[in-house]
């Protein structure tokens, strides 16, 4: 038997493969991305793709389920916000082939804009929820999730967190089992969600949920470990292992793998076997509140709290008051926030924008969110993926309505984000006569999540050549009569593009285009910049570009040769011409 150390995400991909899944669609997002990065290795057995956004991915996967095959979609927690519409109705309609939606939550917001608890989505959408706690369970529970989906005729939310998705633990593989695909038969009563059908589907859904709750009492996904009867812990997901380490020998555990609907009869039985009941869960009191509402006394959130990730030490400290033996070495480390990489094409754009104090800039989710960090400080807001244009629109309309005339508004997003949901914002600006400049920072890849292809890159997830959608053609079709394409690394041209767009008498948009240096299939022009210390006057203007390779030492600029790639943005801002580029 093959035994490997796999991340939860790798194991989920393997589990989908073994479950006989045939159609998979996702939009990348930390901490879910590696599930789909690992699917192409099974491409002889299944179809997998990057969709433009999570709603599309969910619809594609659900369509495949309607057509009778097992299907998968995956997204980060905030992706479920985008995909919520089809999920809620898929619950009413039910499934033909098993349908699993992976929601990867990010407690502590390692790479996210919030730490929403997506377990409430499963409850609200009235779908089953399965929560694995390690990589073996990621694999095994995937297979169970498809059985549940088909048996109870509903989508299954497969909910992970960063530590489940990204931690590695030992996994034993199984074999892929091909599932016979039934002949397709049109079923309008089930799948046309017109009011009359939805009216009849809702009670059927409630009935299925009741059956599922009863199944939870005997499901192998829910596991009771009985100890000496003093303390009992109800827990799920990664919190199970934190509690295992934190609670004393003899503690009883009810570890739930099927967490919506909650198996309340089983919990009641467990509670009756222990003197004191705790509920240990990360984020909100999803389980605790329901257990209390069922009249079962328990404790948890008042001690543990709702914020951030837990770990064994935190659980020990908050439940038993045992502080960690922490050594204070007396020296404080300086923060090391993430920064745009040396040679990042976004740097030239944000540096140029940072020079204009009258600019108001609504940003978006991606590497370019870092344009809001010091020393660039060139963003006013970042809300959600694809929101850059539309949030800017609202700000522009507000300034107009309030009579503010000394602000120039820009909406900024990336290429992948444009295809994700920025296009609708671009339509909004034209349709409702927005007084702002939309800017697409086109680095020809989905950067932050680790370089996934998107509809503009010319390749798909399977590595095939694909149609590369042209952002300029789309903007032109929308009615932007002045689409300015510029290389953001050329600071003069970047400034000129901004001025031209502002002066334009017809609707203007900017595409700042230069590929990310980390794209492996492109040959990049790499050099290095050097400082002539004779010419350098130590004015530190080069520090304003916020490049990790540019430092000041002994009052003179210095460029770290290991990091520098020779983009020359620092050289362009040097008033003394002290920085020049050499070939590497």
């Amino acid at each position, binding site marked *: 038997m093959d035994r490997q*150390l796999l991340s939860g995400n790798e194991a989920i991909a393997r589990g989908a493969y073994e479950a006989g899944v045939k159609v998979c669609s996702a939009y990348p997002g930390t*901490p879910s991305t590696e599930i789909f990065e690992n699917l192409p290795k099974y491409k002889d057995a299944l179809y997998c793709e990057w969709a433009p956004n999570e709603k599309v991915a969910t619809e594609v996967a659900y369509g495949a389920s309607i057509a009778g095959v097992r299907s998968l979609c995956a997204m980060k927690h905030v992706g479920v916000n985008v995909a919520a519409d089809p999920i809620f109705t898929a619950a009413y309609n039910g499934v033909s082939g098993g349908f699993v939606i992976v929601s990867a939550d990010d407690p502590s917001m390692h790479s996210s804009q919030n730490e929403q608890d997506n377990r409430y989505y499963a409850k609200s959408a009235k779908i089953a929820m399965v929560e694995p706690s390690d990589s073996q369970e990621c694999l095994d529970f995937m297979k169970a999730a498809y059985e549940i989906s088909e048996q109870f005729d509903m989508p299954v939310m497969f909910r992970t967190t960063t530590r489940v998705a990204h931690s590695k633990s030992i996994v034993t593989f199984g074999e892929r089992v091909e599932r016979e695909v039934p002949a397709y038969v049109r079923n309008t009563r089930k799948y046309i969600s017109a009011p009359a059908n939805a009216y009849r589907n809702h009670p059927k859904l409630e009935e299925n949920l009741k059956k599922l709750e009863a199944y939870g009492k005997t499901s192998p996904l829910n596991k009771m470990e009985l100890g000496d009867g003093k303390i009992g812990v109800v827990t799920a997901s990664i919190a199970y*292992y934190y509690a295992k380490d934190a609670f004393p020998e003899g503690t009883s555990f009810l570890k739930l793998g099927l967490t919506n609907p909650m198996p309340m009869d089983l919990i009641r039985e467990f509670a009756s076997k222990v003197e004191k009941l705790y509920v240990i869960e990360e984020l909100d009191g999803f389980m605790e509140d329901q257990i209390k509402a069922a009249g079962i006394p328990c404790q948890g959130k008042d001690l543990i709290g709702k914020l951030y990730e837990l770990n064994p030490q935190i659980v020990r400290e908050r439940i038993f008051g045992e502080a*960690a033996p*922490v050594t*204070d070495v007396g020296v404080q480390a300086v923060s090391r926030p*993430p920064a745009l990489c040396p040679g990042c094409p976004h740097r030239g754009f944000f540096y140029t924008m940072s020079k204009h104090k009258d600019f108001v800039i609504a940003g978006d989710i991606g590497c370019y969110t870092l344009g809001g960090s010091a020393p660039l400080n060139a963003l006013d807001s970042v809300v959600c993926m694809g929101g850059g244009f539309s949030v800017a629109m609202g700000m522009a309309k507000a300034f107009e309505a309030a009579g503010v005339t000394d602000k120039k508004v820009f909406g900024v997003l990336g290429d992948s984000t444009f295809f994700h949901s920025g296009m609708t914002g671009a339509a909004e600006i034209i349709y409702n006569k927005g007084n702002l400049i939309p800017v697409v920072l086109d680095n020809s890849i989905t950067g932050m999540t680790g370089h996934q292809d998107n509809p503009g890159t010319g390749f798909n997830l399977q590595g095939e050549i694909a149609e590369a959608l042209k952002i300029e053609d789309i903007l032109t079709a929308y009615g932007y009569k002045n689409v300015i394409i510029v290389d953001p690394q050329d600071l003069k041209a970047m400034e000129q593009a901004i001025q031209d767009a502002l002066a334009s008498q017809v609707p203007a948009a900017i595409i700042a285009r230069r590929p990310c240096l980390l794209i492996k299939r492109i040959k990049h022009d790499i050099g290095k910049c050097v400082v002539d210390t004779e010419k350098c006057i130590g004015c530190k203007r080069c520090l304003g570009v916020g490049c990790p390779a540019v430092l000041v030492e002994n009052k003179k600029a210095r460029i770290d040769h290991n990091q520098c790639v020779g983009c020359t943005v620092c050289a362009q801002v040097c008033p003394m011409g002290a920085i020049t580029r050499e070939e590497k």
Partner: protein
Amino acid sequence: MTKTKSALLVGVGGQGAILTAKVLVNGLMRAGYDVKMSEVHGMSQRGGSVSTQVHWGEKVNSPVIGKGAADIIVAFEKMEAVRYADYLKPNGIAVINDYEMASSSIAAGLAEYPEGCIEAMQKNFTCHVLKAGEIAESIGSAKCMNIVLFGSMVKALGMDDVVDWEDVIASTVPPKFKELNLNAYRAGHDAVKA
């Protein structure tokens, strides 16, 4: 609770801590241990501070450890040793690469690189300090710095007998870098006084 050991590998995104962790877990698995490993991806990788945890024993529960729980810290950069010092057990060991990498706030002149990182660690913990980058370059490539540090870690933790580490390295790294990495391992190992 079963007895387990844990290592915390800390550094700056792109320094090669992931490969080091991979060699470690491959060896531990070969030796028959249960192993769990945790790392964080995404935005934190963009030049930010990164940490990888490896937790092993007969049976491991949590992949992550809390403060005051690590048996060893391997710091690829000296300020990172200080940043994660509170994760070390009071009798923990630190392997520190004597190498300084300014953060963006330091480069921008908004903060000063702290003085005395290594001395502060030495005052509190058993420390092994080496210039792993220079050692790596003297062997042939700065790129094998991570395996130099790995050699030091194995010696510092007294793990020589756990498994044939040279064989583990040879089967983990690409064949053309095998000799380089074996030399790096030995040099790092020798840099730690018994």
